[in-house]
């Protein structure tokens, strides 16, 4: 963790600028225009830029990464982009995590696979500008035209004069050169670093146990606290804190809102004191159980008040005239995000401001909400980011930072609130539980002439993706959704909505393909051709990109050519990127075994090949694990699974081989943190059907009747 003793804007700049001399370039994330950059020779007080890159006289290049790092590796890939255009020696590049400053960092959020797409152009221009300044400085020193010079590996090279100067040597002079109006970016064929595998810049710290995470944060004199929260739909009635307060090491027990916080000095003493709390709760709203939801789903599927999301043609007429109608329903449970590092946050509320430290995907949200809660100016709230031990969307919420701030304001002391795993599983917020019904109408020739999708979700908002494939390829289409409002809190979970919708849709399309007697791959390609030649309504996905990943996955997996393996296909577009997958199941002694998953991704230009493969493999494992095992059920407003003994995550023995391929089309990066996850469940279910003749409609698969007798300690 990079610590900045004070994080007010002014101080932060001073602390960050350790270079005596050298070059410091500030640049705007929100402007791709090079003229919006500024060379800063010294630490002026009011430097109006969003981020910067510095080159010290010793040649050390420092790049500030403004996005929260939670495992998607942007702390490595951002600087790679800058270093590429700068022709920097990667071994001399240092990357620092910048604290929150919304004035400087316009998009300091990790979520939606948007970090790289958002910053690509700007990062490149920043690097190219620095390179330009280095070359100009050398040209001046040698009195030669800049056009005769080149740059390589942190040196400016004069081939004709057979001499070179290091960036470090040139840095101070470069800081006096006027910024160019525009800079030329590299041709893709000249990339040296982009597209290579570059190791995570934090490896050594991670592998030697350095205190990088919020859980590891320590401040002299800080207290630790845990909070007892009510079940969903319940509120605090009475609390007897006497016994807990009397336990050794307990500093205070306070209640606020519906929470009871036990404050102490050591974690174990707090855990023990919590057990001595006597709390009574009473009903405040609906106190729901999974059995209620199951009934509700069925009822709302037919009688719910639906919001129409997309309507093309005349579905009623199409279904009336259909030679064949296929209807299927799919359901998924609530899921916990369960990042390995449970929620935690440090807060110190003082009269003049608030200091927040911890893991969050949205530091600005934490800041704004805390400011509002405590009635302070946002400018007086600072947020220092730690490394995140996973997020998966959970850390887009600010509830746990807010609690810490509220508690600190009550006990008037710096405090770190930590959640146990049980708190994490029972305290919200979750991937919403959703049920879908799909209907397809086929004409006598097996053509898809009508398509309906209804989604029913619990706090799921619009649980459809109405403009996704196959919309645009079917003449008559109706997509609508029904929402049930519940006290159970939900929120974005890695690849929101599509994490399950893709499975349902791709399983359904597999059945439709079979009903129309077409190969599943050809069926999808034909529909895409149809969408291209005579589009129905608006099309918001890129047909060619989708076709390309389908073809690549089919080619790499030898689709349709393998005798002893059952293959299942799936393709999905989410968050600007496209991923197709083929799963392979082999029957072993009459039982299905999942052997391998091929993934073909189009995320545009791959910045860090090693990182990209990691995102794809991790996404596949994540998609598989949650489709197979994870299940959060409720009884009287409380999750029944409270820790990893009952809430199952995938383990090493359960993973198949995964092979990744990337479409090489040279378009600007479109993101990869989430898009590999959605297709996995569908590919596996379709392969499983091919192998066994049984369809899986509900998740988690491991609890379905169809998988009875399959040993799940083994692979599928």
């Amino acid at each position, binding site marked *: 963790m990079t610590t900045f003793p004070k994080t007010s804007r002014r101080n932060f700049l001073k602390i960050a600028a350790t270079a005596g001399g050298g070059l410091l370039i500030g640049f705007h994330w929100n402007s791709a225009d090079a003229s919006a950059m500024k060379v800063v020779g010294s630490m002026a007080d009011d430097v109006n830029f969003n981020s910067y890159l510095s080159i010290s006289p010793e040649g050390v290049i420092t790049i500030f990464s403004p996005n929260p790092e939670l*495992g998607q590796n942007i702390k490595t890939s951002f600087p790679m982009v800058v270093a590429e255009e700068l022709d920097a020696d990667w071994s001399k590049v240092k990357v620092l995590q910048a604290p929150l400053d919304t004035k400087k960092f316009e998009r300091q959020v990790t979520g939606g696979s948007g970090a790289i797409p958002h910053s690509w152009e700007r990062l490149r221009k920043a690097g190219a500008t620095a390179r330009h300044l280095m070359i100009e400085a050398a040209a001046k020193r040698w009195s030669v035209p800049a056009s005769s010079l080149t740059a390589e590996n942190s040196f400016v090279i004069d081939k004709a004069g057979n001499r070179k100067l290091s960036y470090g040597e040139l840095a101070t002079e470069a800081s006096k050169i006027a910024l160019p109006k525009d800079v030329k970016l590299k041709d893709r064929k000249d990339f040296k670093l982009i597209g290579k595998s570059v190791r995570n810049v934090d490896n050594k710290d991670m592998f030697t146990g350095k205190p990088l995470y919020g859980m590891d944060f320590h401040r002299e004199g800080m207290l630790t606290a845990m909070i007892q929260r009510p079940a969903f739909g319940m509120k605090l009635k009475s609390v007897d804190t006497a016994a807990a307060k009397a336990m050794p090491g307990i500093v205070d027990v306070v209640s606020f809102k519906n929470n009871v916080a036990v404050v102490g000095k050591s974690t174990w003493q707090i855990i023990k004191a919590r057990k001595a709390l006597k709390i009574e709760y009473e009903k405040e709203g609906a106190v729901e159980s999974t059995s209620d939801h199951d009934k509700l789903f069925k009822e709302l599927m037919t009688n719910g008040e639906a919001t129409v999301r997309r309507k093309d043609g005349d579905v009623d007429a199409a279904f009336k005239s259909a030679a064949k109608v296929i209807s299927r329903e799919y359901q998924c449970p609530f899921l916990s995000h369960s990042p390995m590092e449970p929620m935690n946050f440090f807060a110190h509320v003082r009269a003049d401001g608030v200091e927040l430290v911890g893991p969050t995907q949205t530091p600005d949200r934490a800041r704004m909400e805390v400011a509002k809660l405590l009635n302070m100016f946002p400018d007086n709230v600072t947020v220092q980011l730690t490394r995140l031990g996973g997020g998966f969307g959970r850390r887009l919420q600010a509830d746990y930072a807010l609690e810490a701030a509220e508690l600190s304001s009550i006990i008037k002391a710096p405090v770190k609130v930590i959640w146990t795993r049980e708190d994490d599983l029972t305290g919200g917020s979750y991937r919403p539980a959703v049920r879908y019904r799909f209907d397809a109408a086929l004409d006598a020739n097996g053509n898809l002439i009508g398509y309906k999708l209804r989604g029913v979700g619990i706090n799921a908002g619009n649980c459809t993706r109405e403009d996704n494939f196959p919309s645009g390829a079917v003449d008559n289409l109706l997509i609508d959704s029904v929402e049930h409002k519940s006290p159970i809190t939900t929120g974005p979970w890695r690849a929101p909505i599509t994490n399950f919708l893709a499975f349902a849709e791709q399983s359904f399309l597999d059945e439709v393909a079979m009903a129309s007697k077409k190969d599943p791959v050809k069926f999808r390609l034909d529909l895409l051709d149809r969408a291209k030649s005579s589009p129905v309504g608006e099309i918001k996905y890129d047909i060619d990109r989708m076709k390309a990943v389908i073809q690549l996955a089919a080619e790499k997996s030898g689709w349709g050519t393998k005798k002893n393996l059952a293959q299942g296909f799936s393709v999905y577009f989410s968050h600007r990127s496209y991923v197709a997958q083929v799963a392979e199941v082999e029957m072993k002694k009459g039982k299905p075994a999942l052997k391998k998953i091929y993934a073909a991704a189009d995320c545009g230009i791959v910045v860090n090949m090693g990182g990209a493969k990691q995102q794809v493999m991790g996404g596949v494992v994540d998609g598989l694990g949650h489709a197979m095992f994870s299940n959060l059920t409720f009884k009287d407003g409380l999750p029944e699974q409270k820790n990893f003994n009952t809430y199952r995550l995938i383990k090493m023995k359960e993973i198949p081989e995964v092979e990744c391929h990337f479409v090489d089309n040279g378009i600007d990066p479109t993101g990869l943190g989430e898009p590999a996850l959605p297709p996995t469940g569908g590919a596996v279910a379709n392969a499983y059907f091919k192998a066994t003749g049984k369809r899986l409609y509900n998740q988690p698969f491991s609890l379905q009747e169809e998988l009875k007798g399959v040993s799940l300690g083994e692979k599928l």
Partner: protein
Amino acid sequence: MANYKLQINGRSYEADVDADTPLLWVLRDNFGLVGTKYGCGIAQCGACTVHLNGNAVRACALPVSAVGSGKITTIEGLSADGDHPVQLAWDEVDVAQCGYCQAGQIMSATALLNKKTKPTVEEIETAMNGNICRCGTYHRIKEAIVLASSKMK
């Protein structure tokens, strides 16, 4: 409360804690050895894995009073400079995503390789199956163990 003297990473440590305090919290709260992580507290995830006399144990389920004179090794004490073959392999294969589980993974892997320098894939999977990685880095963990194994004599 009682006083416990512990041998950790070749050094002596002392703490006044309750007998039932899990070693995990003594390491983290009392000694500032925060490389050992909390993930579940009930021996289900492996994030807290340390070595007790060379064996992988879950520090969250090991009361400090049960440690006695046993020798504890944590991730901080695995090597002087992060250059244990397993740590180097983890870097070379670039295993981590969020990284939170990796100290536990490395400690489990090291305990395995100390007992058997050339484990089979099945042995690797069995030894590592109790270590959850929520980010799904299992493929690279396996690859790194095979690489480390090839480097260890």
